[in-house]
Every structure is written in C-alpha cells, then in structure tokens.
C-alpha cells in the first residue's frame, strides 16, 4: 500500500476582540486534540519602550498608562517609582497611601473585568453583563479621583496629581460594600456554578516546577502553591503598613487560578478599607526641584500588578529623557510561554478557558 503523509489541520484562534483580545494563535489539531499552538503576537505592539526615549519623564508618566489597558495604575506606579529611586525622592505618607489605594482599586477593576470576559468566552453572557456593570463602579471612582475613567494619568513623579476628596472616600466605601456583596453573588452565579466548575477543573494544569521554569508570576503562579507576591516580598508604597494574606492554592489548574483571583478581590477590598481608615493628613506630593529634570543613574523597580510581577528598568544618562526603559510585562510570559505549553494536548474547546484562566492582556504583552 502506498504510504501517505498525515496532514494535520491548522485552525486560527483570534484575533477577534474581545474573545482572544488582539492576539492570534495557530492551533495544529488532530481531530479534537491540540497538538501544538503557535502564538503570533504584535497586534498591539506600539513600541512604548522606544517612544519613551523621545519624551521627558513627566510625559512618560502619561504615556505609560497605555501599556496595560486593564490595570493602568500599575504602570504609572512602576514608572514613577523607578524615576523616584534614581532621583532619591521621598514621597509623603498621604501620597503613598493614595497611590496604594489606587493600585488596589486597579487590581479589583482588572479582576472584575476578567470575570466578565472569562464568563463570556465560556458562553455565559449574563455573568459578563453583570461584571461589566460592576466594573463601572470602579471606573466611576477613577473619574471622581482623577477625572479619567480608563486612563487616569494620576500618579506622577513625586506623588499624585491631586488630592482625593471626601466624596471619593464616601463613594469608595459604598462601592466596596456593594462589591463585597456581589462577591457572594459571583460565587453562586459563576464560581460554584456546575457548568463553570466542569469547564475549569483539571483543565490547563501545571505543577509548581513547570510554572517556575516557564516564568509564571502572579495568581497563575500562586495557584500552583508558590507564595510569591512582590507586595509582601519586596514591599513598596504603603503595603508594609497594611495586613493582608497572600492567596495560594495547590491544584494549579484553571479553576484554582480563577479562585485565586476571586479571593484576591476580597483581599484588595480589605486593603483599601484599612488604608482609607488610616489615611494620614498632610501633603500628597513633593515639589520637584531642578535635579529631577536631568537624572543620571539606573534603577530597577518591581511591583505586583493584577497579572503578576511587573518590573521597570530605567537607565537615565543625564538628559531629560530616559536612555532606555524596559517594562517586564507579566502577560508576555503568560501568553507566549505558559499558554502554548498548557494548550498542547488539550482539546479545542478548552483553549479559550485556558487562555482566559491565565488572564493575559494583549496590550500588556505587546507593549
């Protein structure tokens, strides 16, 4: 009998928004089984790191927002801190508290958005609409404090752009109370829903060793039992002054990653409440002297964004613009190393569940 080469079918995943985001992958399949996944990023590559070399530091604080659409405060915080480290600036206590509040609200915002998109790709549209409505509560807080909803441009070198008002404090308390109530609703509606559990449990499983080797961070790593959280391990801003738990799980599958994020929302609510309760008086920003215009030095600052470890490496050679900025984006590894690894051997139907259980943001990946 004549021998024939077996041809496998190649099917595309993405780049439709919002199911896969601005990300495209090619799946090589044998029937239902995925034999391999080839990622094709670049749809949102704007080259921020290079663009920042043409702009002065205060301009970059605004530009860097766009590097992570769903969690912009983490980018602002990272860049501002990296520059402050070179300049040797001390931020006033109130400024640090406000920054931490915004960073945690950003985490809640990102995680709630993620609940919405994950529900949607699992064919669960009602949860998507409800999550999108709840997300609005945080966007409203952004607007009160900063004037911007999605791109706040709020954190700047030396502190924050303006003080928070009593209205913001009251509205935040109300929103947090509401969201805490919504969490038990999400438990009932999404996380304990039988269909959801069946779609997520034992899907996309990785061991702690595999996760470390692939460079996983954030909730994806913590779902494998490793308690790496930059907020605890290399504390910054006001995190040493608040009490919170690092959420870990042992299973390492898509369901564990989902529950990690769900519990992190509760932790973040508790952190914001503590900070609001102990909010110190005083100045929220330091005056920048001429020494902050031209900086010389190099700094490396890491923080825990909603998706994991985000680091800023800034080299400044004494001119008003940075010489080189490197953003270590957590989604870069979530999508480009973990996702192909987990997709191999799974089925086509599990691909969206695995992809969104990793909570990757294409804007963050491409930069």
């Amino acid at each position: 009998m004549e021998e024939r080469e077996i041809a496998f079918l190649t099917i595309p995943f993405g780049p439709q928004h919002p199911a896969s985001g601005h990300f495209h992958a090619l799946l090589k399949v044998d029937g239902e089984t995925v034999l391999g996944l080839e990622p094709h990023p670049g749809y949102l590559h704007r080259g921020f790191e290079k663009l920042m070399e043409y702009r002065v530091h205060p301009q970059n604080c605004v530009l860097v927002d766009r590097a992570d659409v769903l969690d912009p405060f983490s980018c602002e915080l990272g860049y501002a801190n990296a520059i402050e480290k070179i300049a040797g600036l001390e931020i006033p206590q109130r400024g640090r508290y406000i920054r931490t509040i915004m960073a945690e609200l950003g985490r809640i915002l990102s995680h709630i958005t993620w609940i919405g998109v994950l529900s949607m790709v699992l064919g669960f549209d009602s949860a998507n609409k409800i999550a999108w409505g709840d997300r609005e509560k945080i966007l409203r807080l952004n607007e009160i404090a900063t004037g911007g909803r999605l791109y706040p441009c709020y954190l700047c070198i030396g502190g924050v752009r303006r003080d928070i008002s009593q209205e913001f404090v009251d509205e935040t308390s109300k929103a947090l109370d509401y969201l805490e109530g919504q969490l038990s609703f999400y438990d009932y509606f999404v996380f304990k829903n039988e269909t959801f559990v069946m779609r997520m449990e034992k899907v996309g499983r990785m061991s702690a060793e595999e996760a470390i080797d692939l460079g996983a961070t954030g909730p994806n790593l913590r779902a494998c039992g490793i308690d790496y959280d930059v907020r605890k391990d290399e504390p910054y801003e006001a995190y040493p002054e608040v009490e919170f738990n690092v959420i870990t799980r042992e299973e390492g599958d898509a369901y564990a990653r989902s529950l990690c994020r769900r519990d992190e929302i509760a932790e973040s609510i508790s952190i914001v409440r503590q900070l609001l309760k102990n909010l110190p008086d005083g100045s929220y920003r330091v005056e920048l002297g001429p020494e902050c215009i031209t900086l010389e030095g190099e700094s490396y600052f890491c923080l825990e964004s909603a998706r994991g470890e985000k680091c800023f490496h800034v080299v400044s050679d004494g001119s008003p613009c940075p010489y080189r900025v490197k953003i270590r984006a957590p989604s870069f590894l979530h999508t480009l190393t973990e996702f192909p690894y987990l997709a191999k051997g799974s089925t086509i139907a599990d691909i969206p569940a695995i992809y969104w259980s990793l909570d990757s943001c294409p804007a963050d990946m491409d930069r």
Partner: protein
Amino acid sequence: MISDIESRLKSKFPDSLLNVVSKDKRITFSVKKEKFYSILSELKDIGFDHLSDVTAVDYIDEQEFELIYHLWSHREKIRAIVKVRIPREVPTVKSVVGLWTGAQMHEREDHELFGINFEGNPNLAELFLEDWEEIPPFRKDFDTRKYVKEKYYQEDEQYPIVKG
C-alpha cells in the same frame, strides 16, 4: 545569605567578576562575557529558579550592548542581577534556554528589537514585527521619528497619509 552568595561566586570566578554591589535584598554582578553562562548556571544551582527578565541596553558610544539578566530566588526571596557587555559589532551570546525555559521568548524579543543573536535558542523568528527590513528598531541608531516621517507622511504634509 547575600554575603554567602557573594563569597561563593568570588571564590569560584575570581577573574570574571568585574563589579559586585549588594544592597538590601539585591545583589548585582557585572561579569565578563567569557564566563557569564557559567555564572548564571551557578546562580541557578544556588536557587535562583525564576528568570524575571532579559533586558538589552544599547550603549552606542561605547559600541557595546549590555545584557541584563534579572533573577529571583523563590526560596530565599532575594534578587540577583547579572550584567554582561557584548561587542556591538558581533552581538552573539550563548542562550540560557537550557537553564530557564521562559528565557526563550525574552531572547526572541531581544533578537528582534536589538539584533542580538542567542546561540542555542531554538526559535528566533520574528515576534512583533512583520516583514521588517530596516535595522532592529530599538537600537540607538534607528530614528523612530525619521522613519515615521518618511514612511507615513508626504513632504510638507501635516497629517499622515498612508502610502499603499
């Protein structure tokens, strides 16, 4: 712990460490190119199991690239930073994919944006850019503004016109 690592590396690689700075929970090594792989491999054995990032900086005045490897130890909760300078004319180094699988994509990105060759990396195909024919765009001698002007603006035009 930091001082243990410092003394262990100093005794093992006495001629290859150019500079060592340790501060708080961070230790920074500037190392010679010849031994950088052995040093990274030694650090992996010590317990730096997480490769956080591989950054490249183009020091065009000195005609050198600096590669910066950011490592983290999950057990000891400390960070190690290894810096190595390579000549700009022949930007070739050994890949560290054998030590950390996650390095593959970092190296692929640096290859695309800086044109650095990582020997032993299984896949250095284009990542973000499509059909790129210019010099690697993150190098200092690539002028983004000039490129955009020439490619997307016609002469004396204020607004961009996309040429076919």
